[in-house]
């Protein structure tokens, strides 16, 4: 083996790629406990280094989560996956420091996302509930300052805290889009998507039925991956222009949308301005091609109107 070769180690909990030269040391870590197998990594990777490992279902429940595997020969340590991972399962280090080279060299934007806490608007009696309620356990109580703190690195922007705190937390999600559940299409008795959903947007309600609270959804799409009714796709080419040259990218489009019980569409993502073919290509593969402006606007209006109802009942808009 040559020096500078990528060494892969894989355990139940994590996959680590390690590439050590004398003057440069790169590592890329996939935290498999955080990974929900959402397919965003495989879609975004420009070198097709990430492959999807399908979930295992048993009697409509998740026996083993969907996940990923990595080809160490192909990964070039660009850091695109670590930027885009919705559950922050991927961490890239350069010489021991967290870094995404694509961002450092402005070949990739910063995503516009945040979670801000307004102490004054918070009713401290709800403290324990809010901390408990966070699906990713990133909220903690800072006794000295008598305030709540969020571990921003691992916050997945699901907005559970926003609702639980009655608006003391304000969360900005990077992705906008839609999620649609049509239970009538579900396989009888299946609750697999509720098992995988990292935000509890999909959950089992008091009656033991599958329910969707779409306000929490972060558009990761993990639910579609575990759903036993699979999307059928056809490939198509998208072309885009860059610096006067036209390039084409392969993309896939779902052809049986009307048969899928759960459909997630990603329309747009908030990001800083960049000039980069890699970003354009990533967007082409991540965002839905049908995401027309009118569509976005209609849903947005709907959401604004019904926001409060949705917040309180935690129930799906489209269910009504």
């Amino acid at each position, binding site marked *: 083996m040559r020096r500078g070769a990528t060494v892969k180690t894989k355990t139940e909990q994590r996959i680590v790629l390690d590439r050590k030269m*004398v003057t440069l040391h790169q590592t890329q870590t996939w935290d498999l406990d955080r990974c929900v197998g959402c397919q965003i990594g495989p879609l975004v990777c420009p070198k097709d280094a990430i492959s999807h490992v399908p979930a295992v279902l048993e009697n409509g429940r998740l026996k083993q989560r969907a996940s990923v595997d990595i080809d160490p020969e192909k990964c070039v340590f660009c850091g695109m996956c670590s930027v885009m991972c919705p559950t922050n399962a991927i961490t890239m280090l350069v010489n021991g420091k967290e870094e995404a080279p694509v961002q450092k060299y402005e070949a990739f934007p910063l995503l516009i996302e945040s979670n801000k806490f307004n102490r004054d608007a918070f009713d401290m009696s709800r403290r324990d509930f809010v901390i408990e309620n966070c699906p990713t356990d990133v909220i903690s109580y800072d006794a000295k300052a008598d305030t709540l703190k969020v571990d921003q690195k691992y916050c997945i922007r699901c907005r559970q805290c926003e609702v639980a705190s009655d608006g003391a937390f304000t969360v900005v999600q990077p992705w906008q889009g839609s999620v649609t559940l049509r239970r009538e299409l579900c396989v009888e008795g299946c609750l697999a998507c509720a098992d995988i959903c990292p935000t509890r947007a999909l959950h089992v309600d008091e009656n033991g039925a599958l329910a969707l609270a779409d306000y929490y959804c972060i558009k990761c799409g993990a639910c579609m991956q575990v759903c036993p009714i699979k999307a059928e796709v056809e490939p198509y080419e998208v072309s885009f222009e860059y610096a006067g040259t036209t390039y084409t990218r392969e993309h896939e489009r779902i052809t049986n949308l009307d048969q899928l019980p759960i459909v997630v569409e990603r329309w747009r993502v908030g990001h800083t301005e960049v000039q*980069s073919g*890699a970003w354009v290509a990533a967007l082409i593969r991540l965002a839905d091609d049908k995401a027309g402006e009118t569509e976005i606007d209609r849903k947005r209006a709907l959401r604004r109107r019904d926001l409060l109802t949705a917040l309180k009942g935690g129930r799906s808009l489209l269910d009504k």
Partner: protein
Amino acid sequence: MAKTTREIDYENDPPRIGVYVCHCGSNIASVITPSEVVDYAKTLPGVVVAKEHRYACSDPGQSMIQQDIKEYGLNRVVVAACSVAMHEPTFKACISDAGLNPFMFQMANIREHSSWVHSHEKAAATEKAKDLVAAAVAKVTYVHPLEMFEVPVTRRALIVGGGIAGISAALDLADMNIETYLVEKSPTIGGRMAQLDKTFPTMDCSICIEAPKMVDVGKNRNIHILSYSEVKEVNGYIGNFKVKVERKPRYVLEDKCTGCGLCAEVCPIDVPNIFEEGLGPRKAIYVPMAQAVPSIYTIDMDACIKCFKCVDACGALSAIDFAQQPEIVELDIGAIIIATGYDTWDPSEIEEYGFGVYENVTTMMEIERLHCAGGPTVGEFVRPSDGKVPKNLALIQCVGSRDKRYHEYCSGFCCMYTIKNAMLLKWLYPDMDIIIFRIDIRTPGKTYEEFYERAREAGIHFIQGRPSEIVEDPVTKNLVVHAENIATGRHVALEVEMVGLANAAIPSEGSFDLGRVLTVPNDTYGWFMESHPKLKPLDTPTEGIYLAGAAQGPKDIPQSVSQGSGAAGRASRVLNAGKWEIDPIIAYVDPERCINSRGGKCDICYRVCPYGAVINLPGTGQPSSIIPAKCHGCGTCVAECPQNAISQHHFSDGQIVAQLHALLAEKPEEKVIAFTCRWCSGMGADNAGTSHFEYPANTRNILVMCAGRVDADFVMEAFRLGAGAVLVSGCHPQDCHYISGRNFADTRITRLFAQLEKLGISPGRFRLESVSATEGAKWARIMREMSAVVQELGPEGIRAENEKALPQLTKRLARMREVPEVGYLLRLADGAALKDVETGVKQARDKGLGQTVGVTECQLPEATACDTCQLAAACAPETKQAKGGK
């Protein structure tokens, strides 16, 4: 070679043969009794004089032959001495000087094939020598005078590999005003020398002395660098090669890139730089090193994420083109030089040393980069695990060299570079303790021993012993080297902070493939083989292709540079000549025997010819014909033609059958006949001789150009004559000197296996083998095995088998007897009156022979595309058009 005189009527005068048996000092005479061979030769038909000489190749030896030619009016000469590879050209020149046509000559190899391999069977070795002489006399009786074939020479050279050897060759050729293409597979020329820090024994900075030469190459008007390119296809022959070079897409336009490097500054991707041995990174868009020539960037598409940041950075220069495609450049070339150098072997195969597992075990090339000021650490020598300067260092030599498990050979330059690196580090870090584990120190170069002496004086320790194991301390990452100190006989367990391995040099990746493309043989490891290790060290066995530098075997810089110049000299000999003579031992068709002239639709010869030399017009009533300049003389078509309509000059059916008859005249059932090709197998048999690998003396060789020439009829004729066993031996199929000749032999001979077995010939009595030029041991083993089969069956058993097969064999050989020359010979052998048949053979010769020899002008029938003919240079455009070509 001087032209033959015309006074001798070779075709009609009876043969007057002189036989000369060489002692080769004691090399031959200590085993074989030359006088016995001479006396025997005198009894052979046609022999008018037979003599012995201590050194036939010496001046007096050659004068003796030349004098006899005049005195006895000889028209044919046989020399029984050493290998054709050694002295055939010598004696051909000798008789030619005395006015004979050089092809009226035959050599019997009684040294490599007899005295050197049968030293324990002196009487049998002498008997074998007699048989070999008889066979040579038989063949020379039937040879015809041939004129060398004159071909035009394209005055343009191709050099493959832009290391210091290729650079030296290119500059020398350019100085002679010869247009030179330098093909380099990496993005820059410079080769390994560019990676080195200082060079032994003078300790001057490597890149500082090489870079000016690289720049000279880049600027020279006569040199065209094709970097990031590979040779894909080579056709043709000396003076007239057609070469296809693939230019890999670098996605940067050579004419627009100024080498400013702005693109690399914005590229987000870092991957290990191979030039830095992976110790440091480079970008996805890169030049391997600052001094690169040409100074043009390349995008590594395996690493690129297509962010197009570089496109923006390049801006108005617009030098980046993601749409670039591979491009094929076609070149007409007169001579080729192989200078592909070496690679370093990956020592992780030696698990005991832990390279690739223990971070602080490094290779010596890594050490070069680590203390080089241009390297990734800007010259600070640190160990990989913690980036600190090690206090002590063990250097281990012969890692994977001189080791039967990996490579038996010595990598040549490791002793010297190990000492060099030790000295350099001692200069830089006087407190560093440096220990070298060695087997022997080999310092044969000029001032090299003095260099070694200086190292010892500088306080570098040498321990004699090959370490058995290296063990890492998982906490400190220090290493314990275990070895047996041969001087003291004691076990050493030495803890050091870092280890450097002098890992073996191996042939460049792709050497075998390149060998195949060029039809130049590689040895078992992949090093390119020279035509003769002593007398033609820069020539390959393929004419017009030469060797320089480490491509031929490990060589240091002074040797590589000398060879580069030497190879340039060898190549310019051809390139400056304008015209070149090549062997006329080509195939030709007897139009009357070709079935296509009677409306047949046969295309066998066309299909088997590896060089597309056959013009085949089935169904038109036109006989097939062979383009002389395109024929390489493998003889595959000759053997395949079902009509026996094709013959080969100097290797005709008649000549080969004559040899067979001579070899099997007595006690045939005890003999093993071996048909070998001229290249790998023939050289392998010679190699058994030079290595003195003994094998039984009942073995007899017949040399043809390629295994593809061995007609099934020859094998059957051998068994008909009562042979004990028959071997057909060629190169390993992938090494075949005629691309696919060996493969056709395979198909043909495999078919014959089943047929002979049916006739009752025991399986072990007929074999097909591949022996490479270095596999002398294998050759000896095959000979021993086949002799054992013959011995086991015994003469009675063999005679019984042969008798049973005889009627069928005779029947199947009927067609071969129709070949005029063979018929003539067989009738002679069967005792028919000589007078009757002589007219017959004369007619045959009139037809067959006068046909194509010495043709440099197009003699093609109306062909649709005569642009395939490589005589194109000699063919005027009007003629071409008249013949329907382009």
